[in-house]
């Protein structure tokens, strides 16, 4: 079995738990990876204490980008917005259990980039957000 395609990735890709939408939501953002057309939309509901109550993603793309999004949603539920802002590239890689080259890194980090742009209320998702 190919290292990079650990069971969790194929599994989360084929059977995502957090694919869908959150209605009503407080934060929503979407963007894509122009290199490959991967697209991610994220919706998040935050309760009065600033804690993520519900989160979901939608979109399409490679197994890594979609699995990363699913795992990221799982991670942020129950976290404060401040804690969400602290999530780094390395956290994503740890979740995936992977080392990735620069191109695949963009796949893996697309959901984090979208999430952060939404959380910070930015008009645009830029690579700086996940460096």
């Amino acid at each position, binding site marked *: *079995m*190919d290292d990079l395609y650990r069971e969790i990735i*194929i599994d989360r890709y*084929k059977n995502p738990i957090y694919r869908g939408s959150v209605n009503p939501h407080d934060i929503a953002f979407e963007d894509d990876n122009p290199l490959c*057309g*991967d697209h991610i939309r994220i919706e998040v509901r935050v309760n009065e204490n600033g804690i993520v109550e519900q989160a979901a993603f939608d979109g399409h*793309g*490679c197994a890594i*980008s979609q699995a990363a999004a699913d795992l990221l949603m799982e991670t942020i539920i129950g976290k404060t917005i401040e804690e969400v802002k602290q999530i780094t590239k390395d956290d994503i890689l740890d979740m995936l259990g992977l080392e990735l080259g620069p191109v695949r890194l963009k796949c893996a980090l697309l959901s984090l980039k979208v999430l952060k742009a939404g959380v910070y209320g930015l008009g645009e998702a830029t690579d700086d957000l996940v460096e």
Partner: protein
Amino acid sequence: METRTNTLDVKKIRQDFPILQREVHPGVPLVYLDSTATSQKPAQVIDAMDRYYRYTNANIHRGIHVLAEESTADYEAARQKVAQFIGAESPRQVIFTRNTTESINLVAYSWGRRHLNKGDVIILTEMEHHSNLVPWQMLAQERELRLEFIPVTEDGLLDLTAYPALLDFKPRMVAFTQMSNVLGTINPAKDMIALAHQAGAITLVDAAQSAPHLPVDVQDLDADFFAFSAHKMCGPTGIGVLYGKKELLESMPPFLGGGDMIKRVQLRSFAPNELPHKFEAGTPSIAEAIGLGAAVDYLTEIGMDKVESHEKEIIAYALERLEEIPGVKVFGPEAAKKGGVASFTLSSIHPHDVSQILDRHGIAIRAGHHCAMPLHEKFGLPATARASFYLYSTREEVDKLADSLYEVRKIFGM
């Protein structure tokens, strides 16, 4: 690798390319199927540049010492070789740029901004690489021009039945690729140019994929402009070519200003130099021109007709092997109408995942939109996987590709 066609001695050719000896993972040899993105380089080309830096390096055109004279002679000899390779009348019509992209931008900036005005029409095609779209979009936006597109059919050919109606718009420019980097489609450039000329248009041929893979002749085509990159034809990065008809190039204002492109400079004015120097501002890519010259020598000695027929054979075999795999869909026309490019999808598996898993088997293909987003949009796809071939590609490599695609299916539980 035991491959011989009746025309090319591929086994021998492969020995010229040091990188083909590489293992990309321990025990896993490289299977390089990404030549459409960039070709590999034979030792003859690498060594020519190495020798230049170790033995003759100097700035050109202005020096009298031996190194400068040798460098100038080598640089201009490369221009002469390129002129011959594409059938240009004179080396003065060969302008060295960085790549195909800069060549096309040069035309859009210099010819376009001199000649095109509000309402003028430019005809492109739906299968263009971004390099032959964006420069014209920028120009169109600045000058309020109209862009029109020859459509692409379901089977990946240009729909030339739509061409006459577009020519009725009296376009000033018709710019199109001679060979698609996604579909492999070889377009009937000579006929398209003749029709464009009848309609009074100037033509630009994006030869980024054709010049490396087919015999080309700019005079036979009657192309007005012809653009390609060294790095896709066994040459180095950092150098490309713009060929243009003499009257056109002479009528155009300079593009970049600076050293070498001038005849005379005063504080507030300058007089431009003669062709081709008028369009080569500053210290050019000298070592790279010499590398391109060596690449032209290499390809010429092998024979472009042989390169073409070898690729024809490989792509026919590749299509046969790919299409037998459940879930594989190859885009573009039948083998007879295309060069050595196979873009495909495998069921719903994302091309990135396909490429990544193939990489574990040493197989380098490309996944993405291949700088042709509008074409992918047309086919309703964000991305495809693309295997592409060159003179060093073998049937055994095609077999490895096919076998590994079965592996991909397995990993995804198919």
